[in-house]
């Protein structure tokens, strides 16, 4: 069990997320935001979004503005129709049914494409084999690109 200790802070973060969502602290209509180390004209505009966000253009609101301190451009997105509480629930997030996961992933990928020219892909083929602890890690890694604090 020693190797599973790290699940404790992750679980605490999950419980905190649930409590926040119940109190409304985590609103489903909150903007998801990244700062891109490129000038605003390179990042795009509401009518011309960078890939892969352009594939979601009809479903999202976009806000693009210069970041302070010469830090590039703040790129923020959110769904036009707020995500329902059920769609944002912990079970939905664990099973990959929360639509914000797709949006977070697209936002991160857009930033990476704009800055680095590519989205880093995990190594393949895998070298791992299934174990109980490994399956738990796999659940977290499968969702990790669409989760987090954006």
């Amino acid at each position, binding site marked *: 069990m*020693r*190797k599973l*200790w*790290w*699940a*404790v*802070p*992750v679980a605490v*973060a*999950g419980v905190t997320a649930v409590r926040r969502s119940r109190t409304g602290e985590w609103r489903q209509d909150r903007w998801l935001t*990244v*700062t891109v*180390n490129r000038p605003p004209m390179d990042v795009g505009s509401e009518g011309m979004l960078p890939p892969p966000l352009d594939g979601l253009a009809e479903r999202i609101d976009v806000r693009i503005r210069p970041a302070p301190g010469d*830090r*590039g451009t703040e790129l923020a997105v959110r769904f036009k129709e707020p995500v329902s509480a059920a769609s944002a629930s912990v079970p939905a997030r664990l099973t990959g049914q929360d639509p914000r996961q797709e949006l977070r992933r697209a936002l*991160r990928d857009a*930033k*990476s494409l704009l*800055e*680095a*020219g*590519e*989205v*880093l*892909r*995990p*190594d*393949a*083929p*895998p*070298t*791992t*084999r*299934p*174990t109980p*602890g*490994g399956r738990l*890690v*796999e659940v*977290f*890694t499968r*969702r*990790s*690109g*669409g*989760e*987090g*604090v954006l």
Partner: protein
Amino acid sequence: MKALCWEGVNKLSVEQVPDPELRNDQDVIVRLIAGTTCGSDLHLIGGYIPAMRAGDVIGHEFVGEVVETGSAVRRHKVGDRVVVCSFVGCGRCWYCANDLWSLCDNTNTNPGIGQALFGYETAGIFGYSHAMGGLRGSHAEYVRVPFADYGAFKVPEGVDDTSALFVSDSVPTGWMGADLAGVKPGDVVAVWGCGAVGQMAARAAVLKGAERVIAIDRIPERLAMTERYAGAETIDYTTTDVAAELRERTGGRGPDVCIEAVGMEAHSDGPMHLYDQVKQQLRLQTDRPTAVRQAIHACRKAGTVFILGVFASAVDKFPLGAVINKGLTVRGAQMHGQRYIPMLLDRLAAGEIETAQLATHTLSLDEAPTAYDMFKEKTDGCVRAVIRPGS
């Protein structure tokens, strides 16, 4: 190909695994010439670093030869002998552009885990758990190197493989500690830990003009090596009251800069070590910060403490009162290697830094589990075990 795999807590084995593939246009594939054990691997092997899976290839400090390049690679070609930075940086996010490479925004493929643990994720690192990006490690015959134009550096002719190897991680880590701690001429610098990183931090402090550099450990061979190659004074903490000795050697002031190069599995011979061991084993704290506490207490008023050792999560009895009331600057970082590696290769070629002495043992990839046993138990004077897949 063969690779050293983590199979569970304190279980390593050499396995046959699929060869790595180019996955992005900016990747190269490197054939390993040599890799080395690192103290931070012990945290991983012992189960203290989160999110490992059975079969994960470990290792992050290595030198090798480019055998395949992606279509967008511009600075490398097949046949280049390269030393590769252990942290992967994209080179173009705000953090990379500001030489804070271990904080790269674009190289951790599992950002959600890092954000749950730390608030924001780190950059990816080779062979260092899925929380740190899940990239394959380097104790293998071949490894994929993403963003190779930024993280792989051609080794100058005249610098041998073993010397170059340590510029992958331990030399820039040590140098960064002295650099970001602001070591300047006239300073007295104390370094906790005489492993490879501690020795390199001590050497960096000497080269940055420190008046005196005092390194602290308990292993006689390491203390002797630090005196000889880093040009530092030493203290054996098992025979001396470290705080009293430092006060005496610094005119009662305490060191201007204290660099901790020990990490989460610190050892000491005091009662706090037993306390930390019990709390860590009961999972009431994840890391043992013994050397950090000592550095904070020993540091002079308004001095700087730099934490180079790897810590994973929460510690207990952190002397925050001493930090506040003595007006200390406390800083830490994972290694921004790309910032320093070109300069360090030049210094290595010029003979200002020596690293070959760190390689006290050389073993084949088949013997890699034995290499880690030797390194962990510090048997036969082992400072670093070099693993050569080709031998």
